[in-house]
């Protein structure tokens, strides 16, 4: 059965704007994005919203629904009371282009700052030999759809714009962890994670994990293991001493080769 829902939606360009009220029809089985599209079709043809797959896999329709970062296409209207006013705003951490559409280029900039996968010298593509158990840990991180809700909700940059230069955000610290755990990656990522990408800013309050639509355990499986790897490198005197005595060059096991 359909009903009339009350919506409050942020309207405006370049940060300036206000919440506008709407009453719009809602039908059974619909999601928030469906309702926004109905608003466009019937009342506000100039309402801007970014979307694509409507299946929770493209990461385009990230927005804040009743203050929580959510995908519009995965937020069922049946989770709200019929008399409830639903507030929809753009992601708060990123600049607004128009209405619900934000400029997420901060994330692309941070992605470019991370050195790409670096195999050992002499090993060519096609020569990599890895066992499943060696790669399945980092495969979890490959589920990321880059909705950037983790970076949006992270208070390090959400509440402190000035930290944006020094902090890559959970999405890209997870990328660093993914590469650092890769059996064939030989780039040194521990020092740079701490010094250049701001891992130390993370105080593991787990909001990134809470909002991830792919249910990736970002904090437990990427950020904390990466923090522990940094401790090996920078803060653990026993590991340092062990590396000196046994002349170890790294802390992640043997160096990969063609026969790894």
């Amino acid at each position, binding site marked *: 059965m359909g009903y009339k829902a009350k919506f409050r939606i942020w309207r405006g360009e370049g*940060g*300036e704007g206000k919440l506008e009220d709407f009453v719009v029809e809602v039908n059974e089985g619909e999601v928030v994005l469906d309702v926004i599209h109905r608003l466009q079709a019937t009342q506000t043809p100039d309402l801007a919203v*970014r*979307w694509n797959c409507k299946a929770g896999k493209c990461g385009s329709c990230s927005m804040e629904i009743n203050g929580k970062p959510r995908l519009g296409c995965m937020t069922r209207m049946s989770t709200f009371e019929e008399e409830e006013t639903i507030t929809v705003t753009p992601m708060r951490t990123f600049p607004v282009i128009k209405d619900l559409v934000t400029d997420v280029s901060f994330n692309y900039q941070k992605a470019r700052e991370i050195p790409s996968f670096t195999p050992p010298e002499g090993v060519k593509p096609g020569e990599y030999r890895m066992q499943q*158990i*060696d790669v399945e840990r980092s495969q979890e991180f490959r589920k990321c759809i880059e909705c950037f809700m983790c970076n949006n909700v992270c208070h390090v940059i959400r509440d402190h714009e000035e930290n944006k230069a020094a902090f890559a955000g959970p999405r890209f610290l997870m990328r660093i962890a993914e590469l650092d755990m890769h059996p064939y990656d030989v780039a040194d990522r521990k020092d740079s994670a701490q010094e250049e990408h701001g891992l130390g800013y993370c105080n593991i309050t787990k909001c990134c994990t809470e909002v991830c639509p792919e249910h990736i355990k970002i904090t437990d499986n990427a950020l*904390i293991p990466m923090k522990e790897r940094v401790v090996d490198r920078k803060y653990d005197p026993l590991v340092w001493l062990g590396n000196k005595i046994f002349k170890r060059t790294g802390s992640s096991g043997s160096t990969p080769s063609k026969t790894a």
Partner: protein
Amino acid sequence: MTQTTAGRPTNDPAQRKQRAQIKARTLRTDRWWLAPAITFAALASFLVYGLWAIFDKSYFVEPYIAPFSSPCLATSCPEGARFLGLAPFGDWWTLPPGILILGLPAGFRLTCYYYRKGYYRAFWLSPPACAVAEPHKKYTGETRLPLIMQNIHRYFFYGAVLIALVLTWDAVLALRDENGNWGHVGLGTIILWINVVLIWAYTLSCHSCRHITAGRLNHFSKHPLRYKMWTFVSKLNSRHMLLAWLSMYSVMIADLYVRLVAKGIVNFPFA
């Protein structure tokens, strides 16, 4: 290709620099304050109890010793309470003996990755809940002193393993009666054993333990035994929060129970 329907976005980069100027601290409509409030109350009650317990002198009654005061390492400890009969700190230590070892379990929990989340949210409001603005004007996280010291968590983990071993020994000794005969099982014995199992589960579920077993390796296939340990610890680690709370309350209940028996407040036959 991603679509941006309706409205024509501005092409002026200057206009793109501002985030939405929303004045409200949060637009969340759920009871986001409930979880940090409960955490605050629970952790505060533990701190208050711990402060009382550490100065309370009724920490030993054959065959039980209160976990907050174990191992008892000073001459001021009753003879039966001394760990392995030793008193390495001698008689110069006149403060409550529990203070001598307090640092290890306290430091382990204080630097624990779960408790950090708990108290950063509940006590420091950084942030109080997800998508709720924190009140602080500046934030440097764990990049500088004093919070950079959180990185020594693994050393407290080693200390916590020692404390868990001591508590296990205490639970074994609780299988004797007050005359030293083995085979005794009182309510205190059961409480101490439940506590020690939860303490071990919490200690081994630690993120540092997970890293030490094999998390630091990139080639699990070359270290099958360590990989098995890592898999086991990872399963425990997924319940680290639950185990943190359960073990915190179990140690508090076990400690209180022993003190009540020692004070004679609990004095039924199977105590």
